[in-house]
């Protein structure tokens, strides 16, 4: 917002309000950004809430730490015990949660807008099933643990997504076909997963099930780094593509008429969405409803307009961190996996949303 002493017309950033939007404009070169103020405010509020929850999560647990201790540990002046708990256990866990949640939020928002249906979601269309089948495969057949399972899951979900895309491609991919084939793929992959579980030793099956439930337990910096990288690349990519998304929503013909290259744009958006979901699932297991629910909650908080990517991201982050905290503390010392908390709480909420959406007529 620099107002200089140059001639008025030359270098000035101006602010305008038009039809509920705030537009910032500058010259030389001419640039402009339009912002939906309420979306921005909602995103900021949700992000602040997320970090407050994260801060709280650093203090609670089997070894409760007063907040002052946490702060001094982060600054580098805490006790060794506290450092271990905060820096090796709780902080990476919390950060993984934030990043996974944000990624799922964006991914879900993109899926819903591309499919034109508020109920589309990466986990419903076979990507989590692909990750699950691959993960169970690595645990049961390859006998692997930890990072190998993560890699396996990632490979599984990306392979599934690529296969679904190719199968849905018939001179182009409609969001509709993609979703339907995804549902079929999910059914097949689930059968495969069940089959693998029958052929395993019971303790292997139990370990595989632990991953399948979706959990942040034991997530350390090895988990945070890849997902931080992925998020740092993919979320800005999604924001850059959001303009194309806005126009794609108007239908293929109209979008083409407005100069959008429909197939590449849609492919790019789906690629970003799928990769975000794949990385998230690989890091934390299939965390049920985050990708489905966060865009819908964000939509209702922001009001009007189509589902924004930033509010969905912020909402997703808040949900995952909150669910993890709840799962850790509710029946302490037993931990309920975060995937189960999100599904058990998220589903009734979502079904209510669906019932109301269907009544209003925007359900599909």
């Amino acid at each position: 917002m620099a107002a200089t002493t140059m001639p008025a017309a030359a270098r000035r950033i101006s602010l305008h309000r038009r039809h509920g939007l705030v537009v910032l404009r500058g010259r030389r070169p001419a640039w402009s950004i339009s912002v939906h103020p309420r979306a921005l405010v909602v995103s900021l509020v949700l992000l602040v809430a997320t970090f407050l929850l994260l801060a709280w999560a650093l203090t609670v647990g089997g070894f409760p730490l007063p907040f002052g201790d946490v702060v001094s540990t982060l600054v580098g002046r805490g006790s060794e015990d506290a450092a271990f708990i905060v820096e090796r256990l709780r902080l990476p866990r919390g950060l993984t949660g934030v990043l996974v949640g944000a990624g799922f939020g964006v991914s879900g928002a993109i899926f819903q807008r591309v499919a034109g249906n508020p109920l589309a979601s990466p986990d419903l269309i076979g990507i989590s099933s692909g990750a699950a089948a691959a993960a169970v495969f690595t645990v049961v057949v390859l006998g692997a643990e930890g990072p190998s399972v993560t890699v396996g899951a990632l490979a599984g979900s990306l392979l599934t997504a690529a296969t679904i895309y190719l199968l849905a491609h018939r001179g182009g991919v409609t969001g509709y076909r993609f979703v339907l084939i995804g549902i079929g793929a999910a059914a097949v992959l689930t059968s495969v997963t069940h089959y693998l579980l029958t052929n395993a030793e019971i303790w292997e099956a139990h370990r595989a099930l632990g991953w399948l439930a979706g959990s942040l337990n034991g997530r350390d910096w090895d988990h945070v780094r890849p997902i931080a990288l992925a998020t740092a690349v993919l979320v800005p990519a999604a924001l850059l593509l959001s303009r194309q998304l806005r126009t794609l929503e108007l239908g293929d013909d109209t979008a083409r008429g407005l100069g959008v290259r429909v197939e590449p744009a849609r492919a790019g958006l789906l690629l970003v969405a799928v990769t975000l979901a794949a990385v998230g699932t690989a890091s934390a297991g299939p965390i049920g409803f985050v990708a489905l629910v966060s865009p819908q909650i964000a939509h209702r908080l922001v009001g009007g307009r189509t589902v924004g990517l930033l509010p969905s991201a912020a909402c997703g982050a808040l949900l995952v961190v909150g669910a993890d905290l709840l799962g850790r503390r509710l029946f302490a010392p037993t931990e309920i996996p975060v995937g189960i908390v999100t599904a058990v709480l998220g589903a009734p909420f979502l079904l209510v949303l669906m019932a109301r959406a269907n009544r209003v007529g925007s359900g599909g």
Partner: protein
Amino acid sequence: MTAVAAPEQRGTARSRRAPTPSSRRGVLRGGWTRGAGLLAALAVLVLLTFVSVAYGPRSIPLGSVWDAVWHPDPGSDAHAIVQTVRVPRTALGLLVGAALGVSGAVLQGITRNPLADPGVFGIQAGASLAVVAGISTLGISTFTGYVWFGFAGAAITTGAVLLIGSLGRGGGTPVKLALAGAVLSTMLSALTTAILVLDVATLDQFRFWVVGALAGRDAEVAWSLLPFLAVGALLAVACARPLNALALGEDVATSLGQKVGRTRALAVLTVVLLAGAATAACGPIAFVGLTIPHIARGICGPDNRWVLPWSAVLGPVLLLGADVIGRAVARPGELQVGIVTALIGAPFFVALVRSRKLAEL
């Protein structure tokens, strides 16, 4: 207007109250050809039944198998195997195959959605949760016990899915119903996982039910299925003609005098009885309910009065065929029928979604 109407047209003239959608004729047309075809399919089924009883990890000569079925010798090992393992398994395959095929056809008819499959609509997730709850809380451990619990779970879930998916504008569109089913399935599946994570013993039992198999069930399971399937079959027969009318759209059907609400209730009940019981007995078996009605329609056209019987015959053909393949491929073990049908059914499903005929969805 020809002087001599084709047999098909005569048939339609007679059934004034339920006109047959004439857009897509099957390969076989006319009452006589379709009837003959059905008998041929039935013959194939009988053959397959015999193969199913005769084939197994332990080679038993055919003559001995025949004796075992009709004149069992209590002392013979081979006869015991045939009587206690293969016959029940085959019988179950026949019953479950027919149940899944017919329920799929009815579901596709009532939702006017060619991609309806009882599994895709949450029946399996509902049955699973109920079975797990039964094992975990009440220590249910027999397959017969699973039947009752599984059925209850399936019934409640189906109701919920149809209710939620049909609300609002447009009624039960394919995507809305499929997604409603998927949402509910995910939730129930999470609850199921929660119980299993906490209770390893339950997991150990459950995983063998959930894979979908004909193995391990004794004759008692088949007997306990019969009441559900018998009532379901009767209801399905009653549904056939109303479903034809419904295919033209609810408004048209109402103007033809059909009571749409009653038909819908009847159809849902049929689906729940047939698919719910079948899933409860053998675990979730994917794609049978989805693909069989399509094949049936391809052969005999969209008239439900033919599609239902054809589905009842083709369903067991698929299921027993898959079962035999599963046994053949993994001797001396077996590949459970649930996974074989998934591997066969998935390419078919994909081809269906890609096909031109779905352009209007």
